[in-house]
């Protein structure tokens, strides 16, 4: 029961109705993303009716400002946003994780340089940094992946380094060093397997965060290039409908919130530390 700070104690999670629901929601999103082109009644950029058509049998959620089917755009938007967020999370963990391991197990100088560099990048809110980099590089899927992954990697670096530092001080790592194992071996085969648990929990958190960041940037008009659908820009482009009392533009935003909420909820259970002496049984 004496788990403190970053130490991660895997414990058997209670299977609650809430968890099952959250997991079901995540799977539903994954399925929708994978099967998107077969589920969507119309094409991603297909103009199929007049602009801002109301809900009907042919267009369940009406059409957007160009007359494209809103439901189809929603499905493709989910698919694009989900794949983008996944790619960014994987890239940020590959970059931040390996640099974090290097900082913890490698030469002290590497740690000093990397840590100071990350300090500088974290001295500015991520969104502001992202905005600045997008102003320089322009917008598009590739730019989004590089910019958000690089900024997110700083957070992954901090956590990986902190976790790996603890492991690096233990006897088995010392033993591996004395055996003459290479740095890469020590990083990948000795330390990494012992910190995957908390890293996976963090990956879930980061995924939800990245998903929201993409939504925010695309809402600000800095997401995918048109005509590709993404959830944030759908809200932006149809927002005028809200002032007429139509809440259809809120649906993509809700779709974002529900996924981020479900992932956060699943992870929250894993990160919750047992409160010592707490009365929550």
């Amino acid at each position, binding site marked *: 029961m004496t788990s403190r700070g970053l130490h991660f104690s895997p414990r058997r999670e209670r299977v609650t109705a809430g968890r099952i629901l959250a997991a079901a929601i995540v799977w539903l999103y994954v399925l929708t993303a994978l099967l998107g082109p077969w589920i969507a009644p119309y094409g991603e950029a297909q103009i199929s009716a007049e602009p801002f058509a109301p809900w009907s049998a042919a267009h369940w959620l009406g059409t957007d400002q160009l007359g494209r089917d809103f439901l189809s755009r929603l499905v493709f938007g989910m698919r694009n946003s989900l794949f983008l967020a996944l790619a960014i999370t994987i890239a940020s963990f590959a970059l931040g994780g390996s640099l974090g391991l290097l900082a913890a197990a490698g030469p002290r100088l590497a740690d000093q340089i990397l840590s100071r560099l990350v*300090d*500088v*990048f974290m*001295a*500015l*809110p*991520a*969104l*502001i*940094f992202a*905005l*600045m*980099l*997008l*102003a*320089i*590089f*322009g917008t598009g899927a590739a730019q989004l992946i590089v910019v958000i992954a690089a900024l997110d990697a700083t957070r992954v670096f901090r956590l990986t380094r902190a976790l790996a530092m603890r492991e690096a001080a233990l006897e088995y790592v010392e033993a591996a060093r004395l055996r003459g194992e290479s740095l890469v071996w020590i990083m990948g085969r000795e330390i990494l397997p012992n910190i995957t648990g908390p890293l996976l929990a963090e990956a879930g958190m980061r995924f*939800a965060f990245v998903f*929201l960041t993409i*939504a*925010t940037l695309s*809402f*600000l*008009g*800095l997401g995918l290039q048109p005509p590709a659908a993404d959830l*944030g820009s759908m*809200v*932006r482009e149809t*927002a005028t409908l*809200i*002032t*007429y*009392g139509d*809440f259809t*533009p*809120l649906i993509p*935003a*809700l779709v*974002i*919130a*529900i996924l*981020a*909420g479900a992932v*956060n*909820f699943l992870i*929250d259970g894993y990160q919750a*530390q047992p*409160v*010592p*002496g*707490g*009365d*929550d*049984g």
Partner: protein
Amino acid sequence: MHPVLKIIVQRLALGGFSLLAVSAVIFFSVSLLPGDYARNILGQSATPEAVANLRHDLALDRPAPERYGRWLLAAARGDFGTSFSGRDGGHGRAVSALVLPRFFNTLVLAALAALVAIPAALLLGIAAAIARGRAADRLINAVALTFVAMPEFLIAYVLIYWLAVRAGLFPPLASIHEDMSWGQRLHRLALPVLTLSFVVLAHILRMTRASLSELLGRPWMETALLKGLPRRRRIVHHALPNAWGPIINIVAFNIAWLITGVVVTEVVFVYPGIGQLMVDAVRSRDIPVVQACALIFAAVYIGLNLAADIIAIVTNPRLLHPK
């Protein structure tokens, strides 16, 4: 020198250094751009003379450290150079004339939101920590988790939908101009302030609860319970004095959410603040304006974190009375 004073001087130096480092990143990240900066701005069809002229105007023909030094010194005096928009006609506007009035508007919005959100978040966070594990705590936590997962613009549009469109209480847009009275301004600002408050509130609440829960579980809190102290005394005299430091840090940590929230909120409500200006400049790739905005955000962020750091140090009883 008193040890506290020494720590404060160290922090101030560190803050100044961070700002310097961030300003260097802001300035030099433009050089990451492949190819020639001036040609990138003017496009591929520009004549070599135009490119050379712009290179000279932007002092791109000078060495990089010199350019950075000049830029930083000018920025410290409030001169951020000339905006790219309108450059072709030869009447580019001074960036500072665009940025500074909007910066004031943003400060008003952020300060009002902080005034609403921080006390509410702390009270709810403390309430949840005291009731931890019980129904009230679970409810507060679930609601906060929901708000954390909501994109800022969803909160904004839900408020617009309910309070502006349906109930007609507030205007859906927050466009303000100089000859408006403060009463009118506050009425226009109600929804943006509310939006921003919700964004920040959820984050601060969750962290306050986590930090206080941990504190309440410490052995010396159990000792206070076993001594038979009443609950109010345990919380007010034993827990809270130790909680101020972490709480101030939490508030400082969440300033990042306030800044992120400001950008989105201003765009949704078309509020003439620095966040909206920055987004517009990013879209038109008006680099001097973007750099000025980023530098101002960085200065505010680092400055507030520094202030919080110093307050936490000054209020820490362990540091004030060294052994």
